[in-house]
């Protein structure tokens, strides 16, 4: 019997606002425990939540990027449960009216486009952090109240490859919309996978298993592959699949059961009575849309279809948002699309990787565009341009001053070049003889000599032309 895998994914993403979802305590990481806390985050009796505008704006940004319907009457609900990391005894979330619904994202699976529908996006708050010691647990409230968006996909994902592509696409979306750093290893982006298997011929979904604790894409892939294998084996044996929450175990590279879910938990959701519904200004919602930067998918389409970049080159640019932004700005001034791309993903990117610096710290768009012009119109040779670029990046200078200071200007003047050529040929009559005997290879050697004499400033093409002409002349 053949089985079909049905996967739905819930993604949580921490928003990089300055302050928390419902309090004015800072959102920051790696600080000493309990130093980033407001009385509201600690659920001090009498405190009331106050909704962060920026968090709402960021959620709307992502909603737009996911082509969602946006609920313009913002409302919140309580999700009631007791847990040591939940100070209020309930989490404020959006159960009944999520801010975003009915969206989709286009993902790229092995260079094939695929569309995944998204059910909902809602705002909520993070819990405190528990650290487990041998006999006790310690609670740090710094994380409590950090804004989160939760994105729930439709169960349309069929395998681990698609799941990873989906997560990757979302991760880029968060980065491009500038709402989060979305680092899975650090927990600023998290996911829960719901997975079930059903016979290919069946219309009915199988028993759903939830996998938690997935902190990298590779673990997502391994967990799903393992789970498909495990569930297939059970089904073939005629054994039941239990409705469970499982977690991925790094050591064994398998999933292990955390708890059985015979009954679904009753969270007693009800509307938050401390926050009146908030009417969002439709103009504001539109403005947020208008200010949205070009998204990865849009950029990819432009790069490949309009700028004729290769798929791989386009991918490399998009993988580095800063670089892609820089590229877009550069080609506005200097529309040599492929040239600019190759220089950026080549020399510039490798320098950035080496120096761990941001591109904006070492290069100005205008300067780089100027350099690209010099390369395009052959004012500079490739070799020269590389040297100029390096000096621009290390000394933070514009190309013109680098060229002047380090005498990089190419010599195009026939007069000057001829003087050098004459000098060389006058002292080496044998070479002309060799040339007249048909050894045309010596032209390259002679160009090299001219370059040497001019400290590499001679225009090689021009030198080549002039040399040929002169040699022909002297041959007679």
């Amino acid at each position: 019997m053949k089985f079909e895998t049905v996967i739905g994914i819930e993604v949580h993403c921490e928003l990089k606002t300055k302050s928390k979802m419902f309090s004015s305590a800072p959102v920051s990481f790696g600080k000493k425990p309990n130093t980033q806390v407001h009385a509201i985050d600690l659920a001090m009796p009498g405190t009331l939540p106050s909704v962060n505008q920026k968090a709402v704006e960021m959620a709307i940004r992502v909603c737009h990027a996911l082509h969602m319907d946006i609920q313009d009457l913002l409302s919140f609900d309580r999700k009631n449960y007791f847990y040591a990391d939940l100070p209020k005894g309930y989490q404020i979330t959006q159960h009944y009216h999520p801010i975003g619904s009915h969206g989709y994202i286009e993902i790229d699976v092995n260079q094939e486009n695929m569309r995944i529908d998204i059910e909902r996006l809602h705002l909520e708050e993070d819990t405190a952090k528990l650290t487990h010691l041998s006999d006790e647990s310690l609670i740090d409230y710094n994380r409590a109240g950090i804004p989160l968006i939760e994105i729930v996909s439709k169960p349309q994902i069929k395998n681990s490859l698609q799941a990873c592509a989906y997560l990757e696409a979302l991760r880029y979306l968060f980065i491009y919309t500038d709402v989060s750093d979305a680092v899975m290893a650090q927990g600023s982006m998290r996911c829960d996978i719901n997975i079930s298997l059903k016979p290919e011929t069946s219309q009915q979904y199988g028993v759903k298993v939830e996998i938690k604790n997935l902190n990298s894409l590779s673990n997502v892939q391994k967990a799903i592959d393992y789970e498909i294998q495990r569930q297939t084996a059970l089904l073939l044996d005629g054994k039941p699949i239990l409705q469970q929450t499982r977690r991925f175990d790094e050591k064994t590279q398998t999933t292990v059961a955390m708890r059985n879910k015979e009954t679904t938990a009753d969270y007693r959701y009800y509307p938050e009575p401390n926050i009146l519904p908030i009417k969002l200004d439709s103009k504001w919602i539109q403005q947020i849309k208008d200010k949205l930067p070009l998204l990865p998918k849009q950029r990819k389409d432009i790069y490949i279809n309009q700028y004729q970049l290769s798929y791989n080159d386009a991918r490399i640019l998009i993988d580095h948002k800063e670089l892609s932004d820089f590229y877009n700005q550069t080609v506005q001034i200097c529309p040599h699309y492929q040239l600019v791309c190759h220089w950026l993903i080549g020399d510039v990117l490798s320098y950035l990787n080496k120096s761990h610096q941001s591109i904006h710290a070492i290069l100005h768009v205008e300067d780089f565009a100027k350099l690209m012009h010099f390369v395009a119109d052959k004012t500079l040779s490739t070799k020269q341009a590389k040297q100029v670029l390096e000096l621009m990046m290390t000394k933070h200078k514009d190309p013109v001053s680098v060229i002047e200071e380090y005498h990089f200007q190419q010599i195009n003047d026939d007069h000057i070049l001829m003087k050098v050529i004459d000098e060389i040929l006058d002292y080496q009559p044998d070479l002309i003889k060799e040339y007249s005997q048909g050894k045309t290879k010596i032209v390259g050697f002679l160009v090299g000599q001219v370059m040497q004499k001019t400290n590499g400033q001679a225009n090689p093409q021009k030198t080549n032309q002039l040399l040929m002409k002169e040699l022909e002349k002297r041959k007679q």
Partner: protein
Amino acid sequence: MKVYSIESLHDAFQSGKVEPKDYYQQIYKEAQFQQKRLNAFAYTTFGKAEKDLKNADFQNILSGIPYVLKDNLCTQNIYTTASSRMLEDYIPTYNAHVVDLLERQGCCLIGKSSMDELGMGFTNMTALTGPVYNPWDVSRIAGGSSGGSAALVASGLIPFALGSDTGDSIRRPAGYCGVVGMKPTWGRVSRYGLIPYASSLDTIGALTRNVRDMAIVMKNISGHDHRDMTSSFQSVPRYFHHLSLDISHLKIAFFKNIYDSLTDLQMKKIFDDMVVLLKQQGAKVDEIDFPERYLKSLVPVYNIIANGESTSNHACLDGIKYGMREDEKSIEDIVIQSRSRGFTKSTQQRFILGMLVLKEENQEKMFRKSQKVRRLIVEELNHIFQHYDLIISLNSDSIAPHIQDAMKKSSSLVDAQLLLANLAGLPSLTLPCGFVDDMPVAINLTGRLFEEQTVLNCAYALENVLPFKNQYVRGDHFEI
């Protein structure tokens, strides 16, 4: 100790007739006397009062005026227990918004007043510090849940106190103790820093001995606060300056079915007299019907909503980050045992019933059902307010019960009517209007949303023709 209203004490301080330091010494002494008699303080905060007094310049009307806060209003570095064992040693790190406002005015806090646990009750018998006794007769209850505030204002010790009102918690004790008590429109006064009972019903209000003082206090605690996302942006009128004795344009209604339910002839007579007095001043007073089925549903709707909201409002009280913590092996046992020992049995029952109504499978027929009936009741009231400015009724169908009978009293229709103002968020004021068996009786006036001024004006006019303005009972004759 001479007893003053806010206005007269302000004048006395400003004119130099009364030396503030001396006066406060008298207050401290009197407070100790009243505490023995009434048990109305949860704590006294004389040290804080001294500090506040130093900052007072006696320029503003409230500067240098002594007051008490119900113990569910958070005070920075001063115990705030909401009368729950769970919070017996809890010290807030911040002030409630209203406390900030009054501090800024120069008010001097002399204590935190006793209340029913978490504001849940109307007797003040469940207070952590024991029952509060009625100043007029210490064998009777002061009523609750703002019983301490009401008793202390009624004793003449202080000219005003703050309380909170979720069902009737300011107005009931005000009526039993013969003082003026008012809850404003929901959203008028920021709830930031009020340890809640039920968020959609809770309001912070005040108790005073006359309507002019009420207008002063109400103005000073009202207004938008960005920390409360239910706080209204509507501007707050200068109530005091707009007080008027002319009520000839007012149209007033009372409910026939509630009036008919009155069995005590003395009570009925008092209410009849009030109607006459209002009519004499030119107001139009009509007897109208309020659907019986809605009247009967007031208590159920209130209980379902209040229990549902409170069970989650108080889920934060788990003994982990603050409050009482029982020593147990597992965290779950810590939470269960702390809560089981930290809350009174009646509070626990409310939480359990709250869990019942919020259960997903029950919500439609319990919690949401009550919210739907709430809408019907509110719509009915809106309809009445299209034709009338105010609704009046007796504050209670009886005087304050004796302590031994307090818990037995079941809620009458008259009592239940006070819930209307909370379900609909309306401003509502209770004014002393008579005596039965030497105990005070009161009338309640409820107005349209954000029309506190109309309520105050009508009360002002009525107070003016009644002999109960500024009444208090120090209790020299009941000395223990």
